[in-house]
């Protein structure tokens, strides 16, 4: 578990989601990265039922990451979050009369996992209701847990294969009370995915990319 940066990759000019992903994979392989399995990150949305009328319904997100297969993360946007084991999903089933699963809102990113020395790069096709909506790129620098110590190195590395589309410093790091020198944890990675999935949900379905 190291410092992670999750960003959205815009589609290459005139190319589909899969074609853009293939171009990126080729760049990574030319760089010397080795494919090491696959990954999946998903996010399910639950609506709290039984709220007093007039109050906005609270949305509860339950996320899973194949990097931590026995855990799941439950969070309220901008609110408290909970790391729990896999049985939390079973508990949400028991709570179905209080929290409804908005099945059409499930967003998932699936793809290949590449390793280049101390970096892990995961390029995923982001899908919602089986239609491809975009591309997520996650870069993790494994030896370090403090963003302030390795952000410049990560930016330089991302430039070598993402070119001009490198992201800004993720806001999850700069918004912490201790700033960039607070150690990261898996909640920071998942919060970044949640923000990306939120943007993707709001976007229009990309023309010509339904699989």
């Amino acid at each position, binding site marked *: 578990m190291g410092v992670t940066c999750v960003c959205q990759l815009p589609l290459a000019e005139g190319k589909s989601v899969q074609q853009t992903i293939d171009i990126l994979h080729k760049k990574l392989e030319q760089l010397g990265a080795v494919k090491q*399995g696959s990954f999946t990150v998903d996010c399910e949305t639950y609506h709290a039922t039984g709220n007093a009328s007039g109050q906005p319904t609270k949305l509860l997100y339950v996320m899973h990451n194949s990097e931590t*297969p026995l855990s799941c993360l439950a969070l309220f946007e901008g609110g408290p979050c909970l790391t729990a*084991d896999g049985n939390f*999903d079973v508990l949400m089933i028991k709570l179905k009369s209080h929290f409804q699963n908005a099945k059409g809102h499930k967003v998932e990113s699936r793809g290949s996992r590449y390793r280049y020395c101390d970096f892990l790069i995961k390029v995923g096709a982001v899908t919602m209701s089986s239609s491809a909506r975009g591309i997520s790129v996650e870069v993790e620098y494994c030896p370090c847990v403090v963003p302030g110590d390795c952000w410049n190195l990560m930016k330089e590395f991302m430039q070598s294969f993402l070119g001009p589309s490198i992201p800004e410093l993720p806001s999850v790091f700069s918004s912490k009370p201790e700033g960039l020198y607070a150690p990261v944890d898996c909640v920071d990675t998942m919060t970044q995915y949640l923000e990306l999935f939120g943007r993707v949900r709001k976007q229009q379905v990309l023309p010509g990319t339904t699989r």
Partner: protein
Amino acid sequence: MEAPPVSVMPVTGGTINMMEYLLQGSVLDQALESLLHRLRGLCDNMEPEIFADHELVYLLKGQQGNPFLLRARRSLSHPAAPWHLRYLGQPEVGDKSRHALVRNCVDVAASHSLPDFLNEMGFRMDHEFVAKGHIFRRGALKVVVSKLSRVLVPGNTENTEPLSLSSLVELSVLAPAGQDTVSEDMRSFAEQLKPLVHLEKIDPKRHM
């Protein structure tokens, strides 16, 4: 750095429903030592495990029906250990000849943000208590002998007073649904604890 296995099927599909089989009884404090002595002889551990836990019971009031109850428990002797969240379903009715109380059970290990998270979900703490005692094991059977104490000031686990002059004794097994031999094994074990303690199937609804 090896990739963890990626399952294609969702984990929630076809989860085994775990059931808790339970027998309960109590023993006066004066007789506690004799019971512990007998349990030491009958059970697996060389020395029983001692525990000190703080349990908070949360309720979620819905639009209709009974409130949803969750139990959140943390260890006072291992403060860094995760919280244990437990859901217990309604006792299974039907087979009166079944010797133990059977109910669906879901156990979740959770991080320390659990109380804040439950409040955000809409749960409100109904009551809390401190339980201290011993845990014994015999195969899949678990025997917990606990002294329950009332928390006088909410959140303050130092200031407690015992609920009664007895200790609660619980014999339980966690098994997948459909294993009926479990309650037989429990009954025969319970026989060996008589007359120090009488463990029986206690229907929680009759005592509400």
